[in-house]
């Protein structure tokens, strides 16, 4: 043992280490504090803690970071207005970047250590699939705020998970319906999707729907370039040679930016009509490299120039505030985040009203989300009895105007959610096969861009 004599340098060093160790222990201790248990009797908390899983690193941070920014802005707005039921709200962000096993650990930490009251999870479909059973196990209400897979509520039933947005089926089906009306006599199609679950799933949905609604279309090519590819020259060369009438790509992020720019350079847009259901999130980055006359979507009815929003002032205020604070137009993940935040607020208010102003338990809060109807930035969303949200879809055609340095949508069609969403209890692939071609005649009228 070292001597305790303060004159002894070794002793002083030991003292330093002890102090440092104490400091470290205190820091760790603050993280180690056990979280709150599932409530049987609810007391009003000092603040509502919300765990938010989003991508802060990796390619999907093009969605994750705007989502986080929207959350920060909206949480600030709620707090300025006095919180929910007089209680302030606080977001705790976690990164989905490292993968599912890390995220599952983070989910547990949020519930068991941070003691969050509610979770918004996640962007990655794999993360959503992994956390929904965990939500039931840990009995903590979880809002699936952005992930796309339709498997979650079609394969299972969950008590504590709710989706505040649509899923892949309506998002892709509405693009298909739009194409069928805008270009009814196309004869061949090629697909260029990222080689991972979303790319495969979305093509499966599109193809199944297309075979039911317009059988006999020739599939010229099915190309699945590597996820994160930067060079599309081989794909573009093949498409130039094959000359398909339509090119479908559900690609997103940097991949889509590269694909659009390279296709534009090689004039592929002049030969084929593109269908890009996620292009809205890339518009500001690619600018006018994306020519006019191609079909673009936004994973919902998310568009800052929505033709007939429920509350024009709300949408305009959100867009302006977001632009002022973050210097970018809000893209669809911002809208999805807003829906999760609005659902949280509406859910708490419904649960409190049911209890005559008393604070709801976790189970009561979860119960309130089922069947909840809450506003979105452009219309409203209803959570069905199976937990799936019914969200309208907007699809439009790209259009160039001098007012914006990037393309905007014209000939916009807002598809009502009920029309394009798989009914409760059915699987998407089975339901898509039952679609009849006359569905196209019943579509709402397109609305042109108004300068």
């Amino acid at each position, binding site marked *: 043992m070292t001597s305790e004599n303060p004159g002894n340098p070794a002793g002083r060093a030991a003292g330093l280490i002890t102090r440092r160790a104490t400091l470290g222990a205190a820091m760790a201790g603050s993280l180690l504090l056990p979280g709150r248990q599932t409530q049987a009797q609810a007391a009003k908390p000092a603040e509502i803690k919300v765990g938010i899983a989003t991508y802060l690193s990796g390619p999907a941070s093009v969605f994750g970071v705007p989502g986080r920014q929207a959350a920060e802005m909206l949480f600030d707005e709620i707090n300025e207005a006095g919180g929910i039921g007089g209680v302030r709200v606080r977001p705790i962000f976690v990164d989905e970047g490292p*993968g599912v096993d*890390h995220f599952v650990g983070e989910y547990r*930490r949020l519930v*068991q250590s941070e003691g969050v009251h509610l979770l918004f999870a996640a962007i990655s479909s794999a993360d959503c*699939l*992994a956390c929904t*059973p965990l939500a039931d196990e840990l009995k903590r209400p979880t809002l699936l705020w952005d992930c796309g897979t339709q498997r979650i509520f079609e394969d299972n039933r969950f008590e504590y998970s709710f989706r505040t947005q649509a899923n892949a089926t309506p998002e892709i089906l509405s693009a298909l319906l739009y194409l069928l009306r805008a270009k009814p006599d196309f004869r061949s199609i090629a697909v260029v999707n990222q080689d991972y679950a979303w790319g495969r799933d979305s093509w499966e949905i599109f193809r199944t729907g297309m075979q039911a609604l317009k059988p006999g279309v020739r599939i010229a090519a099915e190309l699945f370039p590597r996820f994160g590819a930067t060079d599309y020259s081989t794909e573009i060369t093949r498409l130039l040679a094959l000359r398909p009438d339509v090119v479908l790509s559900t690609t997103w992020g940097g991949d889509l930016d590269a694909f659009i720019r390279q296709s534009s350079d090689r004039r592929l847009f002049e030969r084929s009509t593109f269908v890009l259901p996620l292009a809205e999130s890339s518009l500001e980055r690619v600018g006018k490299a994306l020519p006019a006359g191609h079909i673009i979507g936004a994973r919902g009815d998310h568009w800052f120039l929505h033709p007939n929003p429920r509350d024009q002032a709300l949408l305009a205020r959100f867009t302006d505030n977001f632009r002022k604070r973050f210097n970018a137009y809000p893209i669809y993940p911002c809208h999805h985040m807003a829906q999760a935040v609005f659902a949280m607020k509406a859910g708490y208010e419904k649960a409190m009203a049911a209890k005559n102003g008393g604070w709801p338990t976790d189970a009561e809060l979860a119960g309130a989300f089922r069947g909840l109807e809450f506003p979105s930035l452009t219309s409203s969303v209803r959570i069905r009895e199976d937990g799936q949200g019914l969200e309208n879809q907007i699809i439009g055609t790209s259009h160039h105007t001098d007012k914006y340095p990037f393309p905007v949508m014209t000939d916009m069609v807002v598809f009502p959610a009920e029309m394009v969403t798989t009914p409760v209890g059915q699987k998407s692939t089975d339901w898509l096969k039952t679609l009849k071609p006359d569905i196209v005649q019943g579509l709402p009228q397109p609305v042109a861009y108004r300068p």
Partner: protein
Amino acid sequence: MRRAGEVLLVLLAAALVLVVAWTVPWLRFVLTIALAKGLAVLGILLLLRAGQVSFGHALYLAFAAYAIAFGAARVPETLLLLPLAAIGAALLGLLVGLFVVRYREIFFGMLNLALSMVFYSLLEKFYSITHGTDGIRLPPTTFAGQVLDPETQGWAMLCLALLLSILFAVLVRIYLASPIGQALAGIKTREARLEFMGISGRRVLLSAYVLSTLMAGCGGAVLAMTTRHVTPALSYWTASGELVFIAILGGSGSVAGPFLGAVAYELTRVYAAALVADAWQMVLGAVLLLVILFAPGGLWGMGRALVGRRRQA
């Protein structure tokens, strides 16, 4: 006397893990994952003794994890699935090992990496079977026929991981002390001498390789049953890199190194992610840099040096 001290140390470490998991419930999951990875890293350590680095051991981890995922849909019994998955991984290891033990150093490392990436692509491309990158969700597994509630299941998995860790640590110690284990070090120093003694370097390396894949298989099985969701990312090259990272962090001087390294790695990661959600990778990178620069023997070497210095004083 020394042996008694070691047994005491192991029991103390195990007790510490259990106490931490009991006082901080959410760390139970993290510790189980750490031990599972520690098992796989123990295999890396074995190969490191022979001077070989495998950048593809995540292949065996992922193989066992997917074996569990597919098996659990049919027979959801932990005590049956775990050995089956581990043996499956070891058999695959034997098959692959027959080829890769012909190569040394960078070629050995790269071949392993290539094979693990082939497996990654298979998992990703056979979309209708594996669900691609979305992965497969595992149903809850029974334990000796008993259906456990989630809480007890968590404890069962931690205890299982702890038992496996101790079992394999002891096994690897005995193995390393045995003639064949000594021959492993011979591959590192001068393989030709080994051959002159009439010992086949390839066979020695093959035995270590298969043992390492068995351990990686056990680790993968525990990992899959703990996270209850498997994705192809398990076999991506970064996952293999992570194992090598942990081996360096923990130090290859002792069988305790991998577990020490794995626990330190996982804890650093979760605390870094909790404190700075934006820049946790930087924290992790800084920790590894510091270890490489100032403690080439890893955490274990650092601990030994501290103890040694204190003895001298």
